[in-house]
């Protein structure tokens, strides 16, 4: 790991200004960033820590939607009564996301901005129609979670843009499920992840992990046409098979009556 500056700004505008310099990177929980720096994949000259920015509230909005500050830890989100009552599928998904140590420090914003296709919340939040607020030098904008990742570890965020809040619509009559399958240890990165949201006759399906980014598909049959490559988790053919099995299971789970 090469030496770097560490800044801990107290406001979002200060953080954005500090990110303006070449070689600067934001750091929230640091769980992914530190590994990439250790591996020499990332060599930032400046880290801008976001841990003094606040952005750590979980609230229900006037329309019944869920507002999650981007610096809310995954563990806080998992344990939130609001989330457990109104969005139980999110709490369930978080329970097997990596491990407790990671969930204690990893944040919702960092999780979404990292754009690793093996992560659990992006496909689920995409299927739920969640959006994020981005703040940058030119002000705020709102984008769908679905459009954050543009490829493997690639996003539509500018270098000096930060996710400050996530908005998740009320579940209402929707039924949702997220399932994943690991092929090595139980706490491994998933080989496949599938999110299914059912509303009446309509279904929204996202698949992840086997694809470069969370990918919306129209039906289970569309799995065959997905660009999936063999990797250390399994052969392409096996992962396609797993996707079909897990999509079927996720559909069944979503249809199950709520506990």
């Amino acid at each position, binding site marked *: *790991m*090469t*030496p770097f500056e560490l800044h801990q700004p107290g406001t979002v505008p200060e953080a954005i200004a500090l990110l303006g310099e070449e070689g600067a990177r934001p750091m929230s929980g640091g769980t992914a960033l530190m*590994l990439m720096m*250790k*591996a*020499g994949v990332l060599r930032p000259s400046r880290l801008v820590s976001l841990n003094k920015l606040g952005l750590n509230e979980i609230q229900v909005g006037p329309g019944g939607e869920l507002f999650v500050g981007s610096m809310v830890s995954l563990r806080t989100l998992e344990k939130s009564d609001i989330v457990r009552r109104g969005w139980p599928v999110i709490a369930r998904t978080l329970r*097997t996301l990596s*491990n407790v140590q990671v969930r204690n420090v990893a944040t919702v914003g960092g999780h979404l901005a990292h754009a690793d296709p093996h992560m659990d919340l992006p496909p689920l939040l995409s299927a739920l129609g969640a959006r994020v607020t981005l703040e940058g030098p030119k002000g705020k904008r709102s984008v769908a979670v679905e459009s954050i990742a543009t490829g493997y570890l690639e996003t539509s965020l500018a270098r000096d843009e930060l996710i400050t809040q996530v908005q998740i619509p009320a579940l209402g009559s929707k039924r949702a499920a997220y399932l994943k*399958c690991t*092929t*090595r*240890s*139980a*706490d*491994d*990165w998933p080989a496949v992840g599938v999110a299914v949201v059912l509303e009446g006759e309509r279904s929204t399906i996202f698949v992840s992990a086997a694809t470069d980014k969370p990918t919306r598909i129209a039906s289970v049959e569309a799995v065959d046409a997905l660009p999936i490559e063999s990797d*250390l988790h*399994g*052969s392409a053919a*096996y992962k396609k*098979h*797993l996707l079909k*099995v897990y999509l079927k299971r996720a559909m069944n789970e979503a249809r199950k009556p709520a506990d």
Partner: protein
Amino acid sequence: MKRASQPTETPQVGRSIPRLESWLKVTGRAEYVHNLRLPGMLYGKIFRSSISHGRIKRIDTAAARALAGVHSVVTAEEIKSIVPDPYYGPAFLDQPVLAVDKVRYVGEPVAVVLASDPHVAEEAVHLISAEYEELPAVYDEVEAMTSKAIVHDVLKPAGTYPDLKHLQGKKNTNLALDFRLRRGNPETALKSAHRVFEHRFRTQQVMHTPLEPLVTVVESTEDSLTIHTASQSPSFVRIEIARLLGWPENRIRVRVPFLGGGFGAKLYIKLEALVSVLALLTKKPVKISLTMEEQFFTITKHATTFRIKSGLDREGRIVARECEVWWNGGAYADIGPRITQKSGFTAPGPYDIEHVAIDSYALYTNLPPAGALRGFGVPQLVWAYESHTDMIARALGIDPVEFRRKNILREGRPQATGTKMKDAAIETVLDRLEVLLDWKKPFDRGGGTLKRGRGLAVGFKACISNTTSLAAVSVNADGSCTVYCSSVDMGQGSDTAMAQIAAEVLNLPAESVRVVHSDTDVTPYDMATLGSRSLFHMGNAVKLAAEDAAGQLRALKDELKLPADAPVPDIFRKKYGMRAGSVTGTASFNPSYTPPDANGLTENATPFWMVGGTGVEIEVDTETGRVRVARLINVADVGTPINPKIVETQLSGGSIMQLGFTLFEKLQFDAAGQLRNASLAEYRIPGFLDLPGEIINEAVSAEQRTGPFGAKGVGETATFGLSPAVANAIHDAVGVRLTELPMNPESVYMKMQNK
């Protein structure tokens, strides 16, 4: 912490006392080499080969040397200025301190950057480049037998082991040992057998993954070296460094505090030769701490291929067995040739077979070196023979337990070498497995997409011989006791066990005994902490040394005319007129051994046998091939446990480690010998969510009559049977037979598709 040393009549062996060091460990105060920093210390970072086999044409270190803060860059050239012939190894002098002329695997150390800031050293490593002339490489152990790619131009046995002498100077071969055993007339017996079965099994290359990676710090003065190192074999390090430098052993001091896991990764020489030479070159203390990722390029467990063939008579008795085992040793032999022989002779399994043939081959390949890993090769063998045994039983329509019982090796009967079994509770282990598995009761076979199955396996191991342990036990003027021994506590609890043994002899509470850690200036010689040998060998040495000390105290009482029950402090006060003095008992323990003859036969192959059986109940997800172990039963003959709680955790720990090797762990190489998963993100080991729903550990009622208080080793026992038990259970559940490890979901699913 205060510990009473008041005498006690309470038995100290058989107590499940918490480990003596547990407070130090949970409060972060236990000593580890990783925490050691010396004034003026330089940090070394290693530049490694990017190809699997080639001649080094040029190493460009100029840019690295020019980086601000770099002290120096060292290659084999500089190493040779201190050690002209810089090759080491326990079996062959084949491994260079840094690559000389050739590289033989991807990740082999080629150069080292030294700097007082480890980050600078690491940065400079990226500035080094090397040019190679690539040579043909070989990766598969069976291909290596006949391959044109030759890993070593000339074989150089170290001279320690007589059975390697015939390989001296051999060329054009990758064969680092061809162990051969013949008993009876296997060829004829197979020809005349009623039924013959032949199968082939494979195991994959995996890693030890100690949570504390290898680390060594060396400081030098004009005429001495002090080596602080995370090593399981301090005495060997001293001997080998002395040999390399041409120094007497008394000028080399090897200190080993606690280890954060070893499992065989920290044996013989690892970083010690390199860091010693660096300290001598720079005249400064030098530290190299490997990263977790670098461990993948240091030492691994042998991949193997095993062809096994059995002939049976009409009654279902195994009359002949032929075993051919190929061990993939990687680029350097390490202890591979010993594994090839010492475990090789148990390849037919714990069965009473009259006619036996074993051929066990140690092979060089262009992969990271392989050595001992919790079982010394035995888990690879049990995987094959217990799968094979189950396959035969099912083919013959005999219950797998009954088939084993019919053929089991009973007390007093000769094993393949001809050595008669003694204190080996093989049949008891099988009996208890049958009971704990409720084998005779109806079994819930699951339904829908979740099918259930059960399986079992029994393995055994001969403790390595010929080896020696020495110990000293002091009783101080206040009656307190200090044990001096070079066994390394790497988490297995040896300090606690040695304290219990000394305490039992001296009638002290075990908690009051102090165990001094390996320091070759202080603690006497020990062969190494390996192969579950410490409790038996060092335990016997500590017991004898404590008895020697007790004898000296008794003699003093007689001399001073003190009553037999006089407290120890009174003896010293009367003898010296004040609180002064001490007695030190010493002992050496070296059990007898007879080397094998030309046919691999001997009447005394081992000082003791370890027996481990595993039973599992599993669930197979028929849509994905995922296997979950619902119930795991470890049954072992460990003699009489010194500390039952530690025995239990060694059994569960060994089995969980083997579960990773069974279901998913694997070093994945591409066609050019590049490791694709050299990180814990991509090389997964079992976590808490992988644990079986229920684990039962049982040490059967047994006694090792030659062991200290009836005890023998336990560290490896639970690794033996797990893999074949799971394979047998998969077959029981879904009717497919896996013959290659790991049995990951895809391989199980694909087998089910091709059924």
